[in-house]
C-alpha cells in the first residue's frame, strides 16, 4: 500500500498498462513531451514510453476521437485525452457515429476498444467552458460506456479496466478531485469493473446515490449524521449503462432515496436513475424520490458569487439527507 492522490492513481494506471501492453498509446492536446497534460495526469509518460506512444495531437477534437477509433480498429488500445469535458463537443460525431457504432454496425467484425479521458466538473472558477458536466450528452447511447471514478482506489482500478476493455469508454475524471483526495491504495495490479455501482456505506434510514465531487459531500454528511441516522451511500460510478441491480437493491433497503449531481437537473444522469427507480420500485418507496442538482442555467458562471450559487454545497447535501431521513 502507498498513499496516492486521485491524479497519481490515474497516472499509475496508465503507466502500468503501457508497460503491460505495448499496443497502448496515449495522445491529446499537450499530453506529450515534458508537460504531460494541463493537469499533469500524463507527466513522465513520454519520457518512459517515447514520443511515438505518447504524443501531442493537433488542436482538433474530432481528429483526436477519429484517430483513436482508427487505432482501435487496428487493435491498439488507444487512450485519447480531451483537455476539458467541455471541449468534447466537436468530437460528438466521431464518438456517436464511429466509436459507439463500430461494433454494432459490423455485427462484431470491427471494434473500437478505446478510452476517451476527460476532466469535468466545477468549483474551480473555470467559467462556462471549464466547469461543465457533459456526460449527459452521451448517457443514453448504447454501445458506449461512460464511467467516472470518485475515489482514489477506483481511479486506478477503473482506468486499468477501461484500457483493457474491448468497448469504447468515455472516462470522466473530476478535476477537483485530482489533488484534493488521497488514499492508501494497493501497489499491486488490480482492476475495478466498469458496469457496477459501489455501495460505500451501509445503512437503513436513507439511501444516497452520487458521484464525483458530490460523493465527497455525501460521505462527509454521512459521518456528521452518523449518530442520528444510518445512511446507505452508493457511488454510481457507471454513468451509462447504469447498474440497475445495485441501485434498486440499495433503495429497497431504505425506501428513501436522495440523488445528488452537480450537473443541471434537467436531462441529467440522475434523472435517468430516478426514472429507473420510479419504473421498477414504486412499491418500495417510502418517500418521493429527491434529486439535489444544479439549477437549469445554461452553464456555471465565473464570478465567485454566481459559481457558489450554482453549485450544490456541503450544507445542501447534509440538510437534504436529514430532511429525507426525517420524512
Amino acid at each position, binding site marked *: 500500500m502507498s498513499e496516492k492522490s486521485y491524479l497519481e492513481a490515474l497516472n499509475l494506471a496508465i503507466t502500468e498498462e503501457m508497460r503491460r501492453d505495448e499496443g497502448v498509446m496515449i495522445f491529446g492536446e499537450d499530453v506529450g513531451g515534458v508537460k504531460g497534460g494541463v493537469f499533469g495526469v500524463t507527466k513522465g509518460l513520454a519520457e518512459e514510453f517515447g514520443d511515438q506512444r505518447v504524443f501531442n495531437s493537433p488542436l482538433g477534437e474530432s481528429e483526436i476521437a477519429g484517430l483513436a477509433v482508427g487505432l482501435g480498429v487496428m487493435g491498439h488500445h488507444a487512450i485519447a485525452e480531451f483537455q476539458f469535458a467541455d471541449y468534447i463537443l466537436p468530437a460528438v460525431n466521431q464518438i456517436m457515429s464511429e466509436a459507439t457504432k463500430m461494433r454494432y454496425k459490423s455485427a462484431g467484425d470491427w471494434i473500437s476498444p478505446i478510452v476517451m479521458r476527460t476532466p469535468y466538473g466545477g468549483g474551480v472558477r473555470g467559467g462556462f467552458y471549464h466547469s461543465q458536466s457533459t456526460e449527459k450528452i452521451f448517457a443514453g447511447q448504447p454501445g458506449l460506456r461512460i464511467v467516472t471514478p470518485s475515489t482514489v482506489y477506483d481511479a486506478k482500478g477503473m482506468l486499468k479496466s477501461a484500457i483493457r476493455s474491448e468497448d469504447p469508454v468515455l472516462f470522466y475524471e473530476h478535476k477537483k478531485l485530482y489533488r484534493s483526495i488521497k488514499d492508501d491504495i494497493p501497489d499491486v495490479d488490480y482492476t475495478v469493473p466498469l458496469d457496477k455501482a459501489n455501495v460505500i456505506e451501509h445503512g437503513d434510514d436513507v439511501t444516497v446515490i452520487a458521484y464525483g465531487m458530490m460523493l465527497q459531500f455525501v460521505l462527509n454528511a454521512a459521518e456528521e449524521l452518523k449518530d442520528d441516522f444510518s445512511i446507505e451511500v452508493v457511488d454510481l460510478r457507471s454513468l451509462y449503462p447504469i447498474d440497475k441491480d445495485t441501485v434498486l437493491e440499495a433503495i429497497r433497503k431504505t425506501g428513501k432515496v436522495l440523488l445528488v449531481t452537480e450537473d443541471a437537473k434537467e436531462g441529467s444522469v440522475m434523472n435517468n436513475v430516478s426514472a429507473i427507480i420510479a*419504473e421498477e420500485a*414504486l412499491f418500495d*418507496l417510502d418517500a418521493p424520490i429527491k434529486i439535489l442538482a444544479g439549477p437549469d442555467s445554461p452553464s456555471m458562471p465565473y464570478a465567485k458569487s454566481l459559481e457558489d450559487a450554482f453549485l450544490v454545497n456541503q450544507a445542501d447535501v447534509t440538510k437534504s439527507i436529514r430532511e429525507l431521513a426525517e420524512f
Partner: protein
Amino acid sequence: MSELIIKMPPLGESVTEATVSQWMVKPGDHVKKYDPILEAISDKVVTEIPSNDDGVIEELLVNENDVVPIGTDILKMTTEGAVGSVPVAKVETRTTESQNSPSFKATGRFSPAVLKVAGERNIDLSSVSGTGKDGRITRKDVLNYQPKETPIISSQPAQLASEPVIRSTPVLELNNNDAVTKAGPVRKMIAQNMLKSIHEIPQAWTMIEVDVTGLVKLRNSLKNEFKEQNEFKLSYFPFFVKAVSSALRNNPKLNSSWQNDEIIQHKDINISIAVATDDALFVPVIKHADRLSITGIAAEVSRLANCVKTNTLKGSDNEGGTITVNNTGSFGSIESMGIINYPQAAILQVESIRKELSVLDDDTFGIRNKVNLCLTLDHRILDGLAAGKFLNEVKANLEAIDQNTNIY
C-alpha cells in the same frame, strides 16, 4: 405456369403514391425478367419499373396517368417458371417481448395513490376487492368503493330507477337462470352521471321530520273539486316544491353549484324533479318555481310527467335545474339518501307521509301526519348550519299550511 401480380414499388423514402406515366408493354407481350414494363413518376423520381420475372403480360390493372398508392396491384402476368414470387417485402411478424415490468404481490402492497384515497375516505382496504392484475386494488377500486352499511332502498326495478342510490355490486358468478342485459345508452348515461357525482362531490346527509297535518287536511278538502276543475290531480308533491322554492329565496347558498373551483350562486330557482319510467330516470326542470302558485307547479309537474311517458320531453325541459326535489314517498320510502344531481349543490328527498301518534304541545296525544325530508348536500359549498337553516325554513313553510292557504 403461375400468375404473378406486379405492385407499384416504393419510389423513395416518404413517398406514398406514384403515377403510371407510360406502359411499355401490352397484354400478350412476352417479357424477360428485368425488362422495363412501365415508366412511373413519384414526387422524388421518374423511373422505369422492371419486370420481376419472365412471362406473358395478362392484364394492365391501371391506366396511364392514374395516381396509385405504393403497393397497388398494377399488372397481372403469367410466369413461365414454377411459382412466381410477388415483389413485395414480406411482412415479418415481430414478437415483442414484454419489458420486465415491476412484479409485486397483489395483496398487502398498496400504491401511494390507493393509500391516500383510502386515508381520505377512511376506507378499510381489507374490505375492498381489487380489479387489477392478480387482484390488486387500484385507485379506481377505492374511489368506487361504497361501504356495505350505506342505506339502500330495495324496491321494484321500476322504482329503483327513480331512486338515485348506487350500490357497490360485488361480482357474482352467473347462474343459468340469470338474465343478462346490456346497459342501453340512457342507462349508461345515468350511470356516468351518478359516478361523476359520487367521484367529485363530497356528499353529506341530513334529515328532519315535518308535521304536515294541515297540508293533508287542505289537500283532502280540495282534491275532488280540483280534479273536476283541472285536467290533473292535486297531489302532495307541489306543496313541497312550493315550500322549497320559497325557502331558497332566503337561502340562496343551496341554489348553487361548484364549477372549476368556483361557487356559482344561481339567480333563477329552477327545480329538477325526478320522473321514472320502467327502465330509466329523467330529471326534467320546473323553471322559476318560486314564481308559480301551487296549482301552477302541479300543472308543470303533470305536464313534465306526461312528456316523459310519451317520450316528448324537449331539450329545454331538461336544462337549467339548480336543485332537485325527489318524490321518494310515492313508492313508500320513509328514509333515503339521494345522490346529488351533478353539478347542483343539494337534493331533497320527500318521503312518505305517515300517520303517527304524537305528543302535542298541550301534552295531550293526537294523531298527526308526519313526513321525513332527507337532504344530501355538497359539503364543499354547504355546511350543516346552512343546511339546517334551509330545512327549518322548508319545515316552517309546510307547517304553516292550513285551510286558508291559497293554492291558486
